[in-house]
């Protein structure tokens, strides 16, 4: 099936080469980092996790979001999602891949990564994270590929794939809960030490992930002959709406707990992030922007008439994605380290090599996404055009 990805238009190859260029640039800077050490980033003794782990945290959510499409279709027979289950699974694969790559580039001794498997430590959440991420990657590859092959042959998927699909559905929230547990069990960091972390993570995952799926559906509809279906996109929009409402509510719940109790361990990180602490406020514009985007997105999503307009929905999806990327990919991680355990403020800002390496990893993710989507849409075009003999339009 992969040979389908070797035949494409000039635009396709242009995109592939552009992404390879970004990957190459990121790789060169990674070699610099490998040589010099992680000091080449903006991380410090006080803020010891930064952009890389932030991106990993955000992308784990995006990866988990495939379940929002797969669950309604396989467990509740929601036929409208039939066409896009593979699209969702093929988004989960590069997302999980990027998660693992971000962890890899963040490690001080990456060549020792197998130590995690050679010396399993069940009481370490990070050990579990590695296991669940690896399995999720393999599951999605297996399920996506099998279902797509079956579609290509024009037969229903084989029955043995069903248990794997159910496994993937159960596993998807688990990858994100485990990632939330990385943060939510650390004594001393009160910004993170909250039961609602896991719930917040899931809510933001199920808003950011389906938003990205909506954006990708629009792109696929525009640039290929495959149409994911208007109703499917609208349902995704409804999912994003409710998940985003929950996400913002959870954040406000945290704000209440912090500022009504007035316990410094809880209030100081929020103060640092949203209004600055002791004259330090590098992240304030970022968090302000994220909040404004969240408000705008909620306005666009909650009003049904606006949500039904596809252009507005696409715009709302973009604002949700960016807002959550800033909040989870940056604010959440840094907020746990500022102020530090001595109640001092030491700020963090990513350096240029760090950003270029990050961009390189995103490049790898987008390249894998492009190739997988090329395979999926080409096969779906063949299959669906063959069955109906005409270009598919909006009916779901």
């Amino acid at each position, binding site marked *: 099936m992969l040979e389908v990805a070797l035949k494409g238009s000039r635009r396709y190859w242009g995109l592939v080469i552009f992404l390879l260029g970004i990957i190459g640039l990121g790789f060169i800077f990674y070699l610099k980092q490998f040589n010099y050490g992680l000091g080449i980033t903006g991380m410090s003794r006080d803020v010891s996790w930064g952009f890389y782990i932030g991106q990993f945290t955000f992308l784990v959510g995006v990866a988990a979001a495939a379940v929002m499409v797969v669950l309604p279709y396989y467990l509740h027979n929601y036929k409208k999602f039939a066409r896009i289950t593979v699209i969702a699974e093929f988004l989960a694969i590069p997302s999980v891949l990027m998660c693992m790559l971000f962890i890899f580039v963040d490690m001080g001794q990456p060549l*020792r990564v197998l130590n995690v498997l050679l010396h399993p430590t069940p009481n370490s959440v990070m050990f579990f994270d590695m296991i669940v991420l690896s399995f999720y990657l393999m599951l999605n590859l297996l399920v996506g590929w099998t279902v797509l092959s079956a579609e290509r042959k024009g037969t229903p998927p084989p029955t043995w794939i069903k248990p794997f699909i159910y496994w993937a559905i159960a596993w998807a929230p688990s990858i994100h809960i485990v990632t939330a547990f990385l943060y939510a069990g650390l004594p001393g960091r009160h910004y993170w030490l909250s039961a609602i972390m896991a719930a917040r993570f899931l809510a933001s995952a199920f808003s950011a992930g389906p938003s990205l799926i909506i954006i990708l559906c629009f792109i696929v509809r525009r640039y290929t002959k495959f149409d994911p279906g208007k109703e499917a996109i609208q349902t995704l929009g409804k999912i994003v709406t409710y998940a985003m409402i929950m996400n913002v509510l959870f954040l406000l719940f945290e704000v209440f707990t912090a500022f009504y109790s007035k316990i410094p361990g809880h209030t100081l990180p929020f103060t640092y992030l949203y209004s600055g602490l002791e004259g330090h406020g590098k992240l304030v514009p970022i968090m302000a922007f994220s909040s404004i985007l969240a408000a705008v997105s909620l306005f666009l999503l909650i009003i049904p008439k606006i949500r039904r307009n596809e252009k507005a929905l696409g715009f709302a999806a973009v604002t949700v994605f960016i807002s959550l990327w800033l909040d989870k990919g940056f604010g959440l991680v840094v907020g746990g380290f500022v102020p530090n355990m001595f109640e001092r403020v030491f700020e963090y800002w990513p350096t240029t090599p760090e950003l270029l390496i990050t961009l390189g990893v995103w490049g790898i993710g987008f390249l894998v996404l492009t190739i997988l989507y090329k395979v999926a849409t080409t096969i779906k075009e063949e299959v669906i055009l063959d069955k109906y003999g005409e270009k598919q339009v909006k009916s779901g």
Partner: protein
Amino acid sequence: MSISRRQFFKIAGATAVIGLGGISAIEILQPGQFEAAQLSRNPKALIGKRWGMVVDMKKFDEETMKKSINACHRIHNVPDFGNPKDEIKWIWPETFGHAFPGQESKYMSEEIEHLPFLVLCNQCNNPPCVRVCPTKATFKRADGIVMMDMHRCIGCRFCMAACPYGARSFNWRDPRPFIKEENKEYPTRMKGVVEKCTMCYERLAVGLMPACVEESKGALIFGDLDDPNSEIRKVLQAHYTIRRKSELGTEPSVYYII
């Protein structure tokens, strides 16, 4: 017989996996040559069930504190990068508000407020850093010391996030050029691993007190908290002591007399 390309790859892949996997399994599961090796302990070694320390701030002055800190950093090849971003420190002074955040008050004794408290890894009895380490590179020894295995550390820095005391440092770059005088009898570290105070386990093994304790002129009392007859227990009985962030349940082994 004709075989499709796909079937060929499937068979070749399966053979490779079984072949390599089988050979590796045989090598790994073979009994090693050192199963029956003899090991013994240095007769001078200090033995304890739970090593702890009391920091008597009444007995410390700035010069002695500097000597304690330098003794540790010198014999353990702790580098001096000269900037707070890359900084590595195993033991250092903090004022009251920073060593015991949340316990300072506007009206407290000014003398105590500005006193430099010596802080180091608390060698907790219930260490969160050990709980989170994915490779057991940091682990708790039978004698209570929270140890670092530099060979196994993958540099994920989860332990640094978990430590409520900010006791751990990471080698953000190669430390060798920044070590003033190398102590040849102790290794340095390389970039990419986490380090912290390990209670001078190497000195305890040959019957010596930790370096900071030796230089402290009695201001640091080191001993076995589990031994009811030890000096440290007597000191703890005789004075009121506080520990850093004791409400977190980490059970620190370092006590402070103010």
